[in-house]
């Protein structure tokens, strides 16, 4: 069915250079630019507001004015494709990475990735974490072959920059201070219960978790982690995994293919 009113209206909403749609009017004939601008403003301001609330730390870092200007460009370039605004902005980090005016802050895109991961974790499926007693009951000889089903709220964000420290200092979790140890940080985001938790992963921890999440067996994940960082500590990482409620289930070993390392 043709819908000329919708098409011309829609095209003019995100592009203020386009003429206002044909066929709209107002009672006082003095139309309509100001009146149509209400719709333009509602659309753009509403979407910018959605991004502001999702990327509050990015906004804190660059300031309100810079963020709003950047968000307006993003909204016009990549408007939402779904009415579920909670996930709008999953592509903002990649946009920031190539947004010329933000070039002086090379870590900004990764901080945005961390914030995007927090929202996904917040809305992820609920699951009751497995208690530590299930691990105690495992057959030690076969433990390397198990698959660990990671909690659905788990997100890993790796960065060449100290994104956790930057995030914590700008979200009010830590006091603002010069960062003495400027190095890459891997963030773990999870929500085992109702609160989203953000913590720093130890050496090799990110590679370990990502391998487990990809369905690799425990021994394979440990190998991947050691390849990523020789300081990887399997016992410590496993204890942390269980203790922070990141294990949804253990899938029993199938025929053994490799020995625990």
């Amino acid at each position, binding site marked *: *069915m*043709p*819908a000329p*009113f*919708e*098409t011309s*209206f*829609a095209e003019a*909403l*995100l592009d203020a250079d386009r003429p206002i749609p044909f*066929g*709209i*009017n*107002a*009672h*006082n004939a*003095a*139309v*309509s*630019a*100001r*009146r*149509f601008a*209400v*719709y333009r403003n*509602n*659309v753009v301001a*509403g*979407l910018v507001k*959605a991004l502001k609330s999702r990327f509050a730390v990015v906004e804190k870092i660059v300031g309100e004015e810079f963020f709003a200007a950047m968000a307006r460009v993003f909204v016009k370039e990549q*408007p*939402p*494709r*779904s*009415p*579920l*605004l*909670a996930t709008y902005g999953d592509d903002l980090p990649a946009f920031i990475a190539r947004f010329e005016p933000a070039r002086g802050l090379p870590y900004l895109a990764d901080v945005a990735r961390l914030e995007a991961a927090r929202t996904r974790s*917040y*809305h*992820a*499926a*609920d699951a009751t974490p497995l208690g530590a007693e299930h691990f105690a009951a495992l057959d030690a000889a076969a433990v390397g072959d198990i698959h660990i089903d990671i909690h*659905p*709220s788990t997100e890993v964000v790796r960065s060449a920059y100290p994104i956790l420290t930057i995030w914590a200092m700008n979200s009010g979790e830590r006091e603002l201070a010069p960062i003495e140890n400027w190095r890459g940080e891997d963030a773990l985001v999870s*929500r085992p219960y*109702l609160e989203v938790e953000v913590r720093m992963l130890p050496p090799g921890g990110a590679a370990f978790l990502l391998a487990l999440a990809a369905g690799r067996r425990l021994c394979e994940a440990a190998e991947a982690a050691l390849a990523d960082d020789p300081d990887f500590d399997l016992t410590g990482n496993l204890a942390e995994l269980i203790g922070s409620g990141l294990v949804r289930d253990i899938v029993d070993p199938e025929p053994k293919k490799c020995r625990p390392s």
Partner: protein
Amino acid sequence: MFRTSSLPACTGVGFKPAHFHDILAAPQPVGFFEVHAENYMGAGGPPHAQLGALRERYALSVHGVGLSIGSMRPLDRDHLVRLKTLCDRYAPESFSEHLAWSSHGGVYFNDLLPLPYTQQTLARVAEHIDEAQTALGRQMLLENPSTYIRFSESTIAEVDFLAEISKRTGCGLLLDINNVFVSAKNHGTQPLPYLESFPLDRVKEIHLGGHDEETDDAGAPLLIDSHGSPVSPAVWMLYAHAISRTGAIPTLIEWDNDVPDWPTLRAEAIAAQDILSDASRASAA
């Protein structure tokens, strides 16, 4: 037949997560809570935990803002499935949407956009409502919009358009009295005749909210449906008038921006309840 809309005939409040702990701390003088459907379409987490707790204690209205019923394009089937999942999970007393469109060409505009009122658009909107009611297995309510412009091609008055939609589809109507006032001021008409000619016998819920006042290019008043302030005195008067005609109808206070603390919002709900109770007494007498 479908499950019909069945909110209690008292006042309700649009739920904001910031008020969750205040609301649960004690029984509230509120008959129902209303939520925007699209805020509860994630898989899990605090939104569902809060909605579950509210639903155990209060009647619930699910109010969609993203179905784009007023579009001439086909409805988004995936979104209908999401709405059905939500309604099946929480079994709300009512589901409502807007006479407006919000998506076009795959883009979601996050605003309630206007449509011309013609026989062609009427037929299309009626089809969409049939489709939604069939998919959800329930009657829905359709809300009158606030508008800032009109279309030259419109041939049907908004009240007649809504009456005919309701007649053809069996849907109920959600009468937003702030929208009536905002649109009338913006189009240089009077809100009272609009109310007088509104099909009040089809109204299953009323919305009350605040608006902002600006001016257009010619200096004429331009009211913005902003839901960021108390209900205006003029809207309270129109509400009392409508209620005196209809008797008690479930009435919602909407406050979506610059959200006040819970006691302030609760006071608005109590003010509406006073008018509602007077009307019930008058009609019982």
